[in-house]
């Protein structure tokens, strides 16, 4: 998102942007050193876990347009893999962090057959199949012997003090989150990322232009799944227990979609913003209300409000406003020649980045009906 608007902007703007990103990173890194309240740090760890998870989700769903409501499968597979390997090899303490890539690998390995089946169908069928496959996995976690059934998998003892318990988790979550955002940014600008976006805008046309949709979608799906698996492993280590209904949790899928849509589906900064806004809010609501169902109703109502009144998300709308405001200010301040042409591409690119609305997609609807 930011790279799109940065291109026509002068270098001073880019420097400013990089500086503010650097400051934000330093602030995030200093957070557990300044804030010593364990509860707040706990909120922050969970928020970072969600920032990473939603960025990973967006890397596939946001870029390709295939909305996955089955990412809890990868989360759960990662959690169970790390948990079971820890138990089996008797790994202790901080060494467990080294097992996280294993959880990611397991999740990516699951994603390949999952994707080979689910990605063959149309977009809305894909959503439904991800839900179905999710239920298969939850049931398997309940039914197999090696998963511990309803008792799940618990962590062994810890080796560090309760006072600074959160700190290592915080930094590992931060590294994964920053890494995922960086990867999303790199992919967005790459040839691979452009192919993904082309698939989102018009899959048949992309195929006609030489993109191999299955290969591209499956690669993105596996990358996204791998990261989600690592996060699942980290979550298991942090919470200390994985149960079939918490590791394979349908609310996780819904939360990820909600965060991405609130911030801006398919943008880079939007999902991060969505997670930063929603996860602390959800934690707060769940602590304030004695009854968990109020939190659930609240989540659903918020989701409906976002879909109805802010369907494109905060970031695309805000950046469009900013662009048009800048263009207007520059037109007033200076002679229009030159400046307008500089502002025009950014105005044209910004909506395309947010929604990908093109003339071809509108004309596609009636012809789709007649083909049937």
């Amino acid at each position, binding site marked *: 998102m930011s790279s799109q608007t940065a291109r026509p902007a002068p270098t001073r703007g880019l420097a400013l942007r990089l500086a503010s990103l650097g400051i934000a990173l330093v602030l995030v890194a200093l957070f557990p050193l300044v804030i010593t309240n364990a509860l707040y740090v706990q909120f922050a760890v969970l928020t970072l876990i969600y920032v990473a998870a939603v960025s990973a989700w967006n890397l596939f769903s946001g870029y390709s*347009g295939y*909305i996955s*409501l089955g990412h809890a499968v990868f989360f759960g597979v990662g959690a169970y893999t790390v948990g079971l390997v820890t138990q089996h090899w008797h790994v202790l303490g901080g060494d467990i962090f080294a097992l996280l890539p294993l959880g990611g690998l397991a999740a990516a390995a699951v994603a390949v057959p999952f994707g080979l*089946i689910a990605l*063959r*169908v*149309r*977009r*809305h*069928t894909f*959503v*439904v*199949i991800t*839900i*179905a*496959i999710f*239920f*298969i996995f939850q*049931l*398997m976690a*309940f*039914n197999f012997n090696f998963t511990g059934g309803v008792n799940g998998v618990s962590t062994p003892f810890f080796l560090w003090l309760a006072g600074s318990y959160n700190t290592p988790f915080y930094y590992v979550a931060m590294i994964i989150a920053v890494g995922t955002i960086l990867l999303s940014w790199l992919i967005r600008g790459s040839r691979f990322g452009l192919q993904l976006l082309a698939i989102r805008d*018009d*899959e*048949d046309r992309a195929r006609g232009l030489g993109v191999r949709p299955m290969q591209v979608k499956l690669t993105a799906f596996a990358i996204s799944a791998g990261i989600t698996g690592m996060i699942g492993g980290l979550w298991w280590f942090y919470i200390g227990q994985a149960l079939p209904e918490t590791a394979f949790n*349908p*609310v996780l899928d*819904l939360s990820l*979609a*909600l965060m991405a*849509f609130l911030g801006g*589906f398919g943008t880079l900064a939007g999902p991060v913003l969505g997670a930063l806004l929603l996860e602390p809010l959800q934690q707060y609501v769940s602590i304030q209300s004695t*009854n968990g*169902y*109020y939190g*659930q*109703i609240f*989540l*659903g*109502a918020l*989701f*409906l409000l976002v*879909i*109805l009144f802010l*369907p494109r998300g905060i970031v695309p709308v805000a950046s469009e406003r900013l662009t048009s405001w800048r263009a207007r200010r520059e037109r007033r301040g200076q002679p229009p020649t030159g400046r307008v042409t500089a502002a025009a591409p950014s105005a044209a690119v910004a909506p395309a980045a947010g*929604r*990908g*609305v093109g003339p071809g*997609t509108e004309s*596609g*609807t*009636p*012809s*789709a*009906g*007649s*083909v*049937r």
Partner: protein
Amino acid sequence: MGRQLSEAITDGILGGGVYALMAVGLTLIFGVLDIINIAQGILVVLAAYLSYVLSVHLHIDLFVGLLVTVPAMFVIGVAIHWAFIRPLRGRERTSMSLLASYAVAIIIEGLLYLFFGSNYENLRAWYVTSSVKVLGFYLNYIYIFGFALAIVLVLALYITLYRTQFGRSIRATMQDRTAARLVGIDVNRVAALTFGIGVAVTAAGGMVFGATGGGFNPNTGYDLISRLLAIIILGGLGSIAGAMVAAIFMITLEGVVDVLWSPSWSVVVFYAALVLVLAFRPRGLFGRTAARAQ
């Protein structure tokens, strides 16, 4: 084993009739509006609770209670469409409506928890507890009555769809929305009424489900919707005949696996059958060929 098997098959066919009814509502909504109503599962549970309230507190017979619950569910369906589905516009409409109906589902689930708690309830009546001997084994009356009800309602739907002017406009909208609008069909009205009808059938489905299933609580909605989704995808999205065949097939398969293998795996086999079919035939058994792009 042989008798258990034939019992499982009979139960599957009779129980599948109710699922067919609920699945037809879901696939009808998909066919006309191009959206998947994730809330269908929890609406079935809501309807079961409505029947429960009517029978326990007002002592109205379950089948007589349908005279109240069917119109009530119809109104709820039209209201959901009006408030949350109709306003959605633009390219991501299908995905958005799916998420919107998911959000509606979790709100209804939360409300049901607040009102009724998480205890499992059962619908009770004389025909639920007493049984009749058929072909050497006992069968509860509710299975027979429920199956008969399902047949009557599916027939009514069939007649509405294929023998009335309104049904013709529904089918026209399913085939081509733009062309239907061009020949003067009020597509929005058709969409609203179809959504209402699709939800109204859950009233009957919920009543029979609440009386025959192993009890229901607000969480049962997830189980129901995942089964219904599997059924309509297997049958081919938008295909009414496909939904009915797939419902009977899947519920029977589940019952057979239940007897031959283990109850805890029967649900997994249910979804595995779906995945297997889709691996070879992505559009389902009776599905139309995929249209361009979406």
